[in-house]
């Protein structure tokens, strides 16, 4: 066993990379759930974003085009969920599961010609002086722009929900859609926009996996990250900064256990592999003991009776 082979600076830098797809998807789903909609299709929207982003980045040679089209792809797929749940008033749990299954199959179809290709590399931030600083440089100043976007998005969602009228109306719709309707707010329109935002975020998260974290395309490559993001939203008590904390914790323990495996620690691999799930759940369950509860209209179907 040789723990000295683990470099703490690289560990922190790579945990941020590992956490970003989960964070992006979780922040999007958090907004959707705050609006009172439970979309279980995160996994399907992520994998669709992953292949849309991968394909267009390969075709155009531009990672930027890839990420933008991943967001669009995720949002377009979420429109299917919109039609089912907001207009046809279908059950949200069933529709979300269908969306995941559809997304997995559809992405495999789209991705047939892209297996084994290499995507264009996403440039990393390179600020003179700052990026060359020891310790701080690799951790804070030499990542790709999408990672910073994830953190900025967390801050933006937090601020919008807490301080702006748009955020207040969104929370009101998720809390009591009948009362919001009686006050004259457009419940369905607000929810449609929230769902599309969630789809775009999930798509971005998926593309982050296929373009940066594991730069290649394989079928089903999101491997349950969407489900982790869904669980994270609940355990984070619908609070953006806690979602960030949870994502980084999960990413951190994942990277750590891989490092420990490589270093040959005498713990069975199965225990190491389950540790990210266990530790994240335990920490967030302890944190969520403050009784902040789910949006009261979460998962309920809204039908304007008049």
């Amino acid at each position, binding site marked *: 066993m040789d723990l000295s082979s683990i470099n703490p600076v690289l560990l922190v830098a790579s945990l941020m990379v590992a956490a970003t797809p989960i964070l992006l998807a979780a922040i999007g789903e958090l907004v959707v759930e705050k609006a009172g909609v439970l979309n279980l299709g995160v996994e399907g929207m992520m994998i669709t974003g992953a292949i849309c982003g991968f394909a267009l980045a390969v075709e155009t040679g531009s990672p930027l085009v890839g990420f933008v089209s991943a967001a669009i792809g995720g949002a377009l797929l979420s429109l299917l969920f919109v039609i089912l749940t907001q207009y046809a008033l279908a059950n949200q749990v069933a529709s979300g599961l269908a969306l995941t299954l559809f997304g997995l199959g559809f992405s495999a179809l789209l991705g047939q010609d892209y297996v084994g290709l290499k995507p264009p590399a996403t440039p990393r931030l390179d600020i003179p002086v700052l990026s060359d600083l020891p310790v701080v440089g690799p951790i804070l100043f030499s990542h790709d722009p999408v990672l910073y976007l994830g953190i900025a998005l967390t801050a933006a969602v937090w601020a919008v929900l807490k301080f702006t009228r748009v955020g207040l*109306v969104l929370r009101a719709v998720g*809390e*009591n859609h009948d*009362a919001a309707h*009686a*006050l*004259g707010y457009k419940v369905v329109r607000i929810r449609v926009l929230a769902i599309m935002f969630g789809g775009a975020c999930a798509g971005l998260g998926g593309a982050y996996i296929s373009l940066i974290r594991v730069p290649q395309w394989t079928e089903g490559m999101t491997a349950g990250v969407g489900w982790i993001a869904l669980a994270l939203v609940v355990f984070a008590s619908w609070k953006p900064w806690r979602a960030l904390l949870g994502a980084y914790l999960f990413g951190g323990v994942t990277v750590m256990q891989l490092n420990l495996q490589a270093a040959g620690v005498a713990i069975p691999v199965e225990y190491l592999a389950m540790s990210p799930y266990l530790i994240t759940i335990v920490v967030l369950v302890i944190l969520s003991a403050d009784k902040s509860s789910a*949006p009261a209209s979460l998962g309920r179907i809204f039908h304007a009776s*008049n």
Partner: protein
Amino acid sequence: MTQTLLSINGLTKAYPGVVANDDVSFDIGVGEVHALLGENGAGKSTLVKMIYGLVKPDAGTMTLRSQPFAPPEPRSARADGIAMVFQHFSLFEALNVAENVALGMENPPPMRDLARRIREVSETYGLPLDPYRVVGDLSAGERQRVEIIRCLLQDPKLLIMDEPTSVLTPQEVEILFETLRKLSAEGTAILYISHKLEEIRALCDAATILRLGKVVGSCIPRDTTARDMAEMMVGSSLKTPEPSNRTLGDVALDITGLSVASPSEFGTSLKNIHLTLQQGEVLGIGGVAGNGQDELLAALSGEIRSAPDAIKLNGAPIGHLGPNPRRALGLLAAPEERLGHAAAPDMSLTENALLTGSVRKGLASNGFLKWGATQEFAEAIIKAFDVRTPGPANAARSLSGGNLQKFVIGREVLQDPKVLVVNQPTWGVDAAAAAAIRQAILDLAGGGAAVLVISQDLDELMEISGRFAALNEGRLSDIRPTDTLTVEEIGLMMGGAHGMEVAHV
């Protein structure tokens, strides 16, 4: 009357199968308090929704201050000075008072200024409120203050109030009326919907009466008796329920030191309740909703168990028994919530009759159901209580509130109970059905059963019960004979004014 504020001309709105409003016309003057009277389903709610822009009329026009007025959505109605306090609170429990108020305003000021204005206005009108408290923690009376203050902050010209007093104590009602009179003196018109006729007589300048969507009359409430107004609403003369002989027998139900914790997080625990109920007696329990009524019913029906000796039926301890053993002994209960608690909404009337009737009517043997006998039982209920439905195969959900309530009460009454406990027997029920239900309760007591009526309708309790007590924060007041009680005393028994003051301006 001074100049006209809002004039309604021939408003008509039809829904599939029913005309909710048919050619409705009336005027509201500036500063007038105008009552809108009618039974459930008379079209009052549809009418105010059209004024507030939630529903578009099929035909007819409105003019506001001599200008054509057709609000496409509540936003524009609010911009024209129309504000509404809803019957079912339109509040967001997880948000605080200031956020709730901001959601009802077009251009709310920043939170800090808004909080200050909420404090100012609430103190001016004697409705103290802390802007940063979460609405979920407030009492029903305090929640209503939030709604009213939300309206007052917009400086409304017309304030619509849909059954505002159903959750208030008499003292709170008096203070609300002071506030409304003050507003009316300042020139705000008020459209007041209620079925409490004495309140309308005390408050309103004019009244329009609706029946089946049509205007059937108007009157000056001060100069009209409550009975005349009720008969205009119903369209026929009303029978006042008459008590049969009131000879009291032995003690049927004896509750000693009953204390139970509420099963729900926001419920009220019962604290040391003592009461005795004699055969042939109707005991009324009043109090503002949420003071332990649901818990008392659950403790008596057997949904919440207690110490065996806390509840005795004819001398035998039953506190530890569940609902079915209690039914077998003759203690029956009809809870408040018709759909979901008293009846299963999507099951047929026959199935619902079986659910509580199987024990006493012997509708099951060896685990097999006797559908024939059950259907006869359901038909007997429908016949005896004049339940308007095509037949017992219809789902409970398809019945109107009043008809389902008659069915639910009738189902228990026909099982020949020794003690019957009912919660809100005539809540949301029209006047004719309410009279029939009250008569059934009195007849049951006349036949020697003991009846415990929990209700928030004080007039109802005064009419049918021999003795009265009030629940306040889970404690039961002294039990007093109703014929010597004054409204003042009842209010104090219910807990007084809960910190409200009379308007300062």
